[in-house]
Structure formats: structure tokens, C-alpha cells
């Protein structure tokens, strides 16, 4: 009798543990996700419906912060600068990355070293990259000015001119992030089947024809993924601009991330900044969903 009760107790405890174990295993991860992702997101959404004064919430304003954004000239300018920056840098990175990936697909002496060298910019800390570019661009003692002086020219103005500063920022981003495009696209190219290419060669197709009819169509899904990833990432660019131009001259390079940071932390408009970031988050989300739909359509065709 006693043995029977003991066995039943063990069975019950075993069953209870079986039921609880998955939840116990999930608990640490779930707690972390709730703590560092869900709660801040919810708190940010809540903050976006409040007016702040001197760093503290003073009133509920509903969606007023969201409405105000669209009449804020500084926000609209930052959004426009960001869109131009993302479009220009990601396009250049995609083209350059693809070209480099096609080149590095060939096997020749030193190719492994070249592939390694090409990804170095990507692994350097963005702040360090920005400092280096600042040393290159500075009109008083920068490398470009020194080169110009050596050739008998004058000071090279990059960071003091709105257009040149913007292009300088794009150049920095292209230098740093083309390797990511290159890496993704090279992996994509290496995974393509050989047969269609051999058949095209047997049929006498030239390199351009092979690229247009085979390589590019087959690479479109990979290219789309690479572009989506870089676009989302480029929308959040912060450290390079913070160090290189701080948004200037004027507002020429003030990306939305810089404007949001200043609004939240420098000017203590926490609710307004939260509305700004929620809006940008939604814009990026919409972009990502559109890209995924596009990808599905490409796959289907």
C-alpha cells in the first residue's frame, strides 16, 4: 500500500515537472524579451501620448504629438534628408557590392586575401570610421587639404558645404557598408546552380547576356534581402553623423536619428520624440513588409 502511494506520488511529481519544465526553460528568455523589448516598446508608445515638461510627463495629449510631427519643418527636413541618404547610399552599395561580388567570384591567385581585405571596413567601429573620415575631410588640417596643398591647391571644403557634407557622409557609409552587400551577394552567387550557366556558355551567350538573363534574375531574391537589411540599418544611422557632422552644416546632414536624439535627450521633449520614433519605426516596418511582398511576387514569377 505504502509502496503504491509512493509510486503514485513520484508519477504525479514527474508529470507536474513535465508540464512545468518547458515553461521553466522558457522563463529566462521570456523575461528578458519582456523586459528589454516588449516593456520599452509599450512604455515608448505610452510616452508618445503625453506632453513632457522639464523631463516629466505633465498631460495626456492623445495623438497630438503624432499630428504635430507633420507640421514640424525640422522633422520633415530630417525625414527628407534621411530618405535621400538611405536611397543614395543603399543604391550605391548595392551596385558596388554586386560588382565586387561578381569580380570576387572568380578564383585566382590572392583572391582569398582580397575577399578578406574587402570586408575589413565593415568590422571597424563606426565611431572610429567617422573620426578617420573627419581627419580626412577637415578643411584646416585634413588629408584632402594636405594633398591639395601638396599639389599647389587651397583648402578643400567638405564639411562646411551642405551638398559636399551630405555626399561626404554618403561616401563614408558606402565605404563602411558596401562590404556587407558584397558578402551577402557573394554568398548568393556562390550558391547558384552551375547548369544554366554551362548551358548558356554552350549556346554561345556572352558575359552580358548571361548576367542579364541568368545571374541577375536568379540573384533578385538575395539582392532584395540585402537591400531590405541595409535599408532598415541605414535608417538607424547615428554614430557616424554624430561624430562627423552632428547634423550640419545647417541641417544638411541631420538624419532623423540625430533629430530624435536631440529632441528626447537634449531638449527633454520625451513624448514628442517617442511619437517621432514610433512613426519612423512604422515607416521602416512598412518598407520591410513591402519588400517582403515584392520578394514573394518575384519568387512566384
Amino acid at each position, binding site marked *: 500500500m505504502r509502496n503504491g502511494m509512493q509510486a503514485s506520488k513520484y508519477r504525479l*511529481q*514527474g508529470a507536474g*515537472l513535465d508540464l512545468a*519544465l518547458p515553461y521553466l526553460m522558457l522563463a529566462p528568455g521570456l523575461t528578458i524579451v519582456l523586459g528589454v523589448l516588449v516593456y520599452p516598446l509599450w512604455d515608448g508608445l505610452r510616452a508618445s501620448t503625453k506632453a513632457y*515638461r*522639464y*523631463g*516629466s510627463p505633465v498631460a495626456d495629449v492623445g495623438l497630438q504629438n503624432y499630428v*504635430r510631427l507633420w507640421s514640424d519643418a525640422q522633422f520633415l527636413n530630417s525625414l527628407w534628408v534621411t530618405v535621400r541618404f538611405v536611397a543614395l547610399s543603399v543604391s550605391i552599395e548595392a551596385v558596388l557590392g554586386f560588382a565586387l561580388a561578381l569580380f570576387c567570384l572568380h578564383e585566382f591567385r590572392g583572391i582569398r586575401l582580397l575577399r578578406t581585405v574587402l570586408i575589413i571596413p565593415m568590422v571597424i567601429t563606426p565611431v572610429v570610421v567617422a573620426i578617420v573620415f573627419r581627419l580626412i575631410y*577637415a*578643411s*584646416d*588640417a585634413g588629408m584632402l587639404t594636405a594633398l591639395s596643398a601638396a599639389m599647389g591647391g*587651397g*583648402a578643400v*571644403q567638405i*564639411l*562646411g*558645404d*551642405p551638398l559636399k557634407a551630405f555626399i561626404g557622409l554618403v561616401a563614408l557609409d558606402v565605404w563602411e557598408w558596401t562590404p556587407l552587400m558584397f558578402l551577402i551577394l557573394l554568398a548568393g552567387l556562390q550558391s547558384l546552380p552551375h547548369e544554366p550557366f554551362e548551358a548558356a556558355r554552350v549556346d554561345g551567350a556572352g558575359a552580358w547576356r548571361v548576367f542579364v538573363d541568368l545571374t541577375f534574375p536568379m540573384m533578385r531574391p538575395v539582392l532584395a534581402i540585402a537591400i531590405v537589411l541595409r535599408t532598415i540599418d541605414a535608417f538607424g544611422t547615428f554614430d557616424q553623423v554624430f561624430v562627423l557632422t*552632428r*547634423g*550640419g*552644416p*545647417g*541641417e544638411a546632414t541631420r538624419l532623423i536619428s540625430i533629430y530624435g536624439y*536631440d529632441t528626447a*535627450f*537634449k*531638449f*527633454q521633449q520625451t513624448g514628442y520624440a517617442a511619437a517621432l520614433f514610433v512613426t519612423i519605426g512604422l515607416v521602416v516596418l512598412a518598407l520591410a513588409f513591402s519588400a517582403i511582398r515584392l520578394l514573394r511576387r518575384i519568387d512566384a514569377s
Partner: protein
Amino acid sequence: MMHSSRLTRRSVIKGGLGLALATTALTTLGLPMPAKAAGKKVIIGAFADGGLTPFKEKIIPLAKEQGFDIQFLEDEYGVTLEKWFADAQSGAGQYDLYLLDDPWVPQFGAANVLEDLGAGGIDGSDKDWIGSMIDMGYWPPQKGPRVKGFENAKPTLICVPFVGDLQTLTYRNDVFTGGAPKTWDEVIAKGKEGVAAGKIKYPVVFRGVSGNPIVTSWYPVFLSFGGSFFDDKWNPIFNSAEGKASAEFFVGTMKQNAPSGVVEFDSDQEGAAILGGDAGAIIQYSGNALKADDPAQTKVAGKLDFGVVPKQQSAIAQMGIFIAGVPKSAPNKANSIEFLKWYVSAETQAKLSEAGSIPVKRSAFGIAKPGNRLIPVALQQLDAGALPRPRTPDWAKVEELLGIELNKALQAGSGGGAALDTAAKQVKDYLTTAGYY
């Protein structure tokens, strides 16, 4: 027998938990205790600035002799305001003392995150204080307009002046041979002669970067042209005729006589231009001025002299003092207040003056051997005229709006007056949204 020796899930979990607890306990107990503090600990937060060098080199060792264990944590200027405000507001308690830039006092005051130093025993009515400096430590301000919500509040001493920094003129004595230039016209005219003689490359240099840097460089020109920033109802009036004349002079004449890349210049570049021997004159704070006699830091040691800022109508400089506040969340509050009492005593201020820093007590200006030639000139400037920036918690935003427009006009080399009109409208709109009117 078999049952007891089998490795079950239960035994693994029990064992794991037991091991985790045992490890935690052992680690906690086994951790070496922190070394006994060398004295009364005070964690000071400061932004990196040459104006604090004498304090770091000479006064911190003296404080140690007095039994204080000073931890001096420096950050870049551009991030300190937000970092410290977040620390104070969240009650994180990372610092015992902030060395603020004086325009930040209203923001900390309005948020009520700093200790009442008067209640802590620091006497704000001591006649030895430089009046205009101690005034900046009160919130709401004792004089001048107050923002809404603080009209009837009792002024409280939440900060005490720490280093009495203010703008003065640094000029090349081989270019301005008759002494400090008295007017802006003289700065430009004599500077051009210096350029023609090959002594310098540019008559003047200043900071042109958007935001705080360009506004800081333009402000003494604006004041010397007779401009006022706000009226007593917080309406922007900086776009008056005087203000516009100063802005046109700044983005036009001054730019033409400055390095070509001045639009992107911040304090590093302007410092390099004057200390490297390229520029004839500069309005600056003490950070770079203190390096003027050190051959290791300047190519023109012995050729740089100091004077009060040039005038158009009057010779008024901008004050930009380091001012100390104790956060309510300070972990060593009593120590910090005790440190401040010692630091602002006439004796320590005299030591500060000997060390070469601009003191905040009048008696310390009169010592026999001030540690730097700049100190008596700073007193002359204080007596000639030096004004703080408007005492509003929204100064950072105002400065940002104005700085962007001034920077755009500087890029163009004209349109200073129109830039002020645009900025005035933006400032008015912003302050309206913030409930100022």
C-alpha cells in the same frame, strides 16, 4: 537502489540550483572587500575643457590633503547635458557633483533635481562672491524675467560658481602693437595689415558649427552691438536693428577675414588657429587662453596678449562659468557639500587663482601672484560688462534654432539679418508650444 543512483531531471535541476546558490554565496563571501576609501569620497562629473586644467592639476591634490577622495570623471561637452540630466532625473546616483555649463542651471532647476545648497550651509549672500556669478546659481533667478510656473517661487541656491570663466579677447601683440584693439573695426583693419605683413594668415577666427558653438561666437558681437535677446515677457527681440547689424557683420565681414573653413570650425580648430600662429585675434573662454604662454602648446608663446572684448557700442562679453550642483541622488551628498564649502572659501579660491584659474570670489582676484596673466583681464572684463545667457530651461533648443539659421547665413556669407528673423519666428513658435505666453 537503482532509483536513488539514477540521474533524473529532478536531480539535475536540484543540483543546478544548489550549485548556482552555492556559487553565488561563495562568490559574494569570497569577493575581496573594496579597498578602504582614502577619504571622503566625492565623484565629480565634468566636461573636458582646458579651463579645468588648473583645478585638476593643483586643487584636487590640495583637496586630498584635506581628506577628500576625489574621483574626476570627464566627458565630451556635447553629451554631458543629456547624460547628467538623465542621471539626476532617474536618481541613478552616478555622481556627487556636476560641473555644469551655466546655461544648464535653469533646466536642472525647473526639474527640481538638485540639492538646496543654501540649506546645506553655503552662504549665497557672502559679499565676496562675484555678484553676476552667484546670481546664476539661483533658481528661479533672483533678477530678470521668470518662466511660467515659477513666477512666485522662492529663489533657491542650487548651484555655486566653480570656475569664473568668461569670454575675453586674445590677440597677437606683434600685429596689434598699440595694445588690445578697442573696436571690431580696429580688429579687422589692423588684422588685415598683419596679414599683408605676413605675420598672420587671418585677422580673426571663431566657431561656425551649428548650435552652441556659433551662437557662443556670435553672442559677444551681438552684445557689443547693443543687442538684447528677450524682452521681459520672453518675446525674442534679438532680431532688432542692432542684432541684425551684428549678424551681418558676423557672417559677412568676420567670415571674409577668417579661415575659409570657419563654417565647420569648433573649439579645436579655432584653438589651433590662434595657438598655431595663423589668426590675429579671437574671443574665447579660458580653455585655450591658459595655453598662451606654454611653448609646448603654442607656436607663438610671448606673442599672445589678453584684453577686454572689442566694442561697437559697449564691450560686453558672454559669461560661461563652470557651476557646481549636487544631485538629489548623490551617493555622497554630505561629502560634496562639505567639499564645496571648502572649495569656495576665500583661502581655496586664492589657491585656485594661484594655480592659474579664474576664481569666483572677488578677493581671490587681488592676490599678489595670480597664476595666469588672464586673471586680472578677466576681472577687467567683469567690470566692463559680462552677461549670462537668458535664464530659461529651454535655452538648448533656442540656441539650436538660432545656431542653425546663423550657420546657414555663414555658409552664404550674407543674410545675417534675415537669419535672425527666421530664427526669431521659430523661437517664438517653439516657446508658444512650450507654454511661455
